[in-house]
């Protein structure tokens, strides 16, 4: 699966943008490098749903002419980006909608903002469709899932085909594939990135996220795509985040390692990896202490289950016959849904107070390594509560499992603390490092 010599691994977002800005490369060359890597990897990882080379090349040509005349659209000029299939791309179908899907007339807001910043939209990446996992494979071990549901986005960044991919998380679908594929990711505060043009699964849970190579890259891309969107009434009424992490100004963080609920749902080797990471962070100057979540934390799992009635409502007019699977959510009285939403509000208040004293909580991202086979794309259990609450979270390097597969460490922050979380994540990244490319790629 090795690519042509000298072009096996995608540079990062900042590296590409800087090289384009300095005239050391062109958007056209950056794209051709991607397409060469696609040719080398796609027969093995099967990560793309739709990649129209002519359309991508036309974008790159335009961006190259602009760059040569000194016009740069934004901080991502010439950077190739992959987009999870559920996001609308103008002129392309959304495969998730099924056979005969319409050609989308307009970009999702996140796609439009990437274009406005100068990015090349390379194509659409795989996700489960019709309840079936895609044939996408983990670039660290092709016998294992890359995770889901942002399967292709995790795999193409993990395989170093592109430096960044747009993902989405309703339960655990952004951070989990990032963890399984050994790369970085952010699932921001709910509403940080507009959901307009993203196929809805559960309106109050769906969160647009990013998978990339490091925190600084994620911060740069997030600065381009965040900010209030009048087309998404749930988007935060805040300006875009700053792209600068100013790490010299960042003090060692105060971190809480969660000692209940999460460890008992994780493999022993995953808990050992969390311990090892905590020791490294403490040795580097972080304040690391034990943290116990409220004893009734588990109620979030149940409240979140009932809020999944949103998905039932979404699909009620689309399905024919008996639904599959039958969850029973379609029968649950509205009072239970309201109660579940009230429990969410209640727990947001209680858990937010943790972040008065701590900068972040540390947990595993997933119970362990990526499962073998493609039938099971992994458990969202350790991510789901924070997604339901709308708290931001990132994936950090947790080392490798005994079987040599990536492990992820989740750092969670309080609502709205996305930029600070990326800063603390970047600080932690200096200590924990990032995983090298998969042996199959390097």
């Amino acid at each position, binding site marked *: 699966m090795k690519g042509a010599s000298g072009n096996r691994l995608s540079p990062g977002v900042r590296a590409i943008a800087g090289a384009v800005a300095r005239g050391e490369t062109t958007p056209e060359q950056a794209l051709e490098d991607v397409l060469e890597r696609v040719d080398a990897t796609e027969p093995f990882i099967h990560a793309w749903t739709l990649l129209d080379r002519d359309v991508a090349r036309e974008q790159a040509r335009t961006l190259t002419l602009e760059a040569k005349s000194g016009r740069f659209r934004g901080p991502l000029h010439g950077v190739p980006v992959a987009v999870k299939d559920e996001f609308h791309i103008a002129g392309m179908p959304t495969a998730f909608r099924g056979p005969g899907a319409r050609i989308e007339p307009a970009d999702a807001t996140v796609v439009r903002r990437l274009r406005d910043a100068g990015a090349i939209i390379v194509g659409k990446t795989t996700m489960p469709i019709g309840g079936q996992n895609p044939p996408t494979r983990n670039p660290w071990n092709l016998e294992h899932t890359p995770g889901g549901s942002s399967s292709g986005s995790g795999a193409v960044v993990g395989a170093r085909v592109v430096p960044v991919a747009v993902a989405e998380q309703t339960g655990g679908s952004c951070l989990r594939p990032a963890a399984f594929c050994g790369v970085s990711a952010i699932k921001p505060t709910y509403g940080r990135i507009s959901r307009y043009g993203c196929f809805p699964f559960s309106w109050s849970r769906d969160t647009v996220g990013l998978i990339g190579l490091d925190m600084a890259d994620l911060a740069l891309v997030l600065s381009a795509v965040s900010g209030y969107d009048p087309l998404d009434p749930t988007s935060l009424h805040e300006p875009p985040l700053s792209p600068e992490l100013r790490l010299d100004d960042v003090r060692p963080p105060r971190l809480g390692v969660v000692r209940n609920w999460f460890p008992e749902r994780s493999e022993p080797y995953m808990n050992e990896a969390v311990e090892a990471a905590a020791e490294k962070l403490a040795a580097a100057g972080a304040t690391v202490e034990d943290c116990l979540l409220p004893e009734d934390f588990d109620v979030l799992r149940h409240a979140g289950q009932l809020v999944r009635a949103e998905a039932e409502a979404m699909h009620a007019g689309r399905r024919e016959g008996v639904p599959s699977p039958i969850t029973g959510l379609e*029968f649950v009285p509205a009072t239970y849904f309201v*109660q579940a939403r*009230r429990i969410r509000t209640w727990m947001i208040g209680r858990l937010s107070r943790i972040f008065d004293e701590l900068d972040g909580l540390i947990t595993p991202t997933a119970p362990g390594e990526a499962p073998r086979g493609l039938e099971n794309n992994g458990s969202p259990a350790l991510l789901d509560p924070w997604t339901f609450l709308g708290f931001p979270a990132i994936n950090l390097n947790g080392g490798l499992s005994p079987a040599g597969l990536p492990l992820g460490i989740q750092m969670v922050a309080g609502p709205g603390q996305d930029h600070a979380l990326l800063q603390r994540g970047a600080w932690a990244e200096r200590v924990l490092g990032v995983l090298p490319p998969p042996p199959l790629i390097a």
Partner: protein
Amino acid sequence: MLLKPPVTKEEALAWLIEQAQRAYGIEITPEIEARLALTAEAMARVSEVDLDEDIEPLLL
């Protein structure tokens, strides 16, 4: 099925099974029952929680 007084998982499951049979006219297989049980457990657990009146079902 009322939210209060709190329901048990068993009560909620029996109710859900009845609703599913009435709506779909199908046999409740062990697999279907297991999925309904997840929702029944969720109903039971959330119905136990008592909240102050100022806790609102905010979207954000």
